[in-house]
């Protein structure tokens, strides 16, 4: 079967964001759960793989948008090994870039430590924990070997009065072995 690394990486990234789980010294912790209810239940964050239609958007949400991909680094002769058994293959390091948008509306609220987090406090919570989730994204269990990930940090943080939402945006690059 033809390789399908981009879809595998994209879906794993979305899956990780939906679980809201990151690593700690004691094991793992969960910042939120994947949502989809309208309106979402407390603690749910909807994660979309593309900008949802206007009628579908449920807040708070994270929108993952692939914005670029291409060859990161090519080896002489294209010979590579991958996996635990050093399977031989042809390929190169391939990078894929994502933009991630966090959006929170006025009604959004997640209870953290017994306190309702809203608006700016909620977007702050989602940014840091979103970064935690991205840093600890688990790409195991797939046929794609991820070798690097780069996270550029959140920017464009603020309130948009036209949308009535608090927003933040981050970029992320995932580099994997494009074995074939």
């Amino acid at each position: 079967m033809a390789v399908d690394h981009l879809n595998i990486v994209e879906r794993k990234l979305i899956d990780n964001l939906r679980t809201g789980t990151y690593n700690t010294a004691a094991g793992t912790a969960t910042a939120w759960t994947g949502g989809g209810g309208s309106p979402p239940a407390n603690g749910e964050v909807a994660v979309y793989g593309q900008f949802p239609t206007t009628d579908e958007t449920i807040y708070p949400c994270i929108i993952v948008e692939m914005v670029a991909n291409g060859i990161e680094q090519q080896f002489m002769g294209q010979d590579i090994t991958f996996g635990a058994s050093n399977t031989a293959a042809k390929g190169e390091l391939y990078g894929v870039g994502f933009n991630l948008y966090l959006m929170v509306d006025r009604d959004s609220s997640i209870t953290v430590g017994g306190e309702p987090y809203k608006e700016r406090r909620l977007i702050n919570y989602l940014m840091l924990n979103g970064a935690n989730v991205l840093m600890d994204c688990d790409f195991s269990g797939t046929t794609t070997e991820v070798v690097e990930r780069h996270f550029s940090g959140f920017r464009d943080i603020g309130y948009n009065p036209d949308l009535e939402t608090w927003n933040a945006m981050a970029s992320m690059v995932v580099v994997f072995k494009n074995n074939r």
Partner: protein
Amino acid sequence: MPGLIGSQGVRPGALNMNRVFRALRYRTEQAQKVTYHRPAIYKTDTYGVPSGSIGSNEILVPDLPAIIRPTVTADYQQERAGNNIIGAARIYTPNITTIKNYANFDQDNNTDFNEIEGWDRLITNYRTIYSIPTKVTGSWVGNGTGVITSDGESVKLTVNSDTSFTHTGNANSLEADRLRFKIRGSGSIQLNNFRSYNGGNKDSTKYIDYNNDNFIPIDNTWLTVDVPFLTGSLLTTGSSIYQTGSRYGVAITTGSGFNVEANSQAFQISFSADNSDTVELKEVEYYKSVSWHVHSLKDMTDGYIIFNCVRTRGRDDAKRRAYD
């Protein structure tokens, strides 16, 4: 006053706006009674972020006359870079003095209301999805031996050991996101709660329960109740019923078998009453709403107010049905 007049052209002078609203409402759908909604305002913490402590309660008052002039009712383009405004409309309401003469907006009764401001919402009936018949008595039952009658518009139960009044009937209500009805009581009728049953065959688990702070509707006066018909975070925020400016909180809970996307199976009100008291219902409807958010005040005259409003969300019911 050029600032107020702006580019309105020739001003029409003093208009009897209530008469205009009535005429348009009776003859067209351009004018309708909308529900004024100001979500609860939370106190802020010392860092300026809303906390969990409510500073002023939600205001949810139906029956505000308005003319809706949409520019775009629904824009279905895919969102790109946060382009999320999916509708825009100009909404006309009576002048503020007239509004404040409505009992629910009277500041002597409702101290939280001042005027319609930015980010307040005007909820309109986009389409009635299911209207429960009240012009006939069929399918309506009490749980006692009270007599049920209808005057062709409303259905009336004369209580005889009854504590509930129920309409049973299977009908699609998928697109609905609000539930509205008018209730009128006589004697000591006290509204305790109301329910909608949705999901397969009606059983005791398939309900959404609106448990209001118990109150006695004013004798022989129609009271409009208009609440959200959704699930999720509403279970914690609840809703409101206003009568002459007094708020009665409505806690919303659902049974384990409730499915908001399933057909409506029954609508029920529960009450306390003495025998021979009467309770009447009419205009019981599940409807799809559009929530217009006030973004700017275009003009405020002694005749009318014009608000520029936007709609920032909605739902795609075709997909909702398909994905269900």
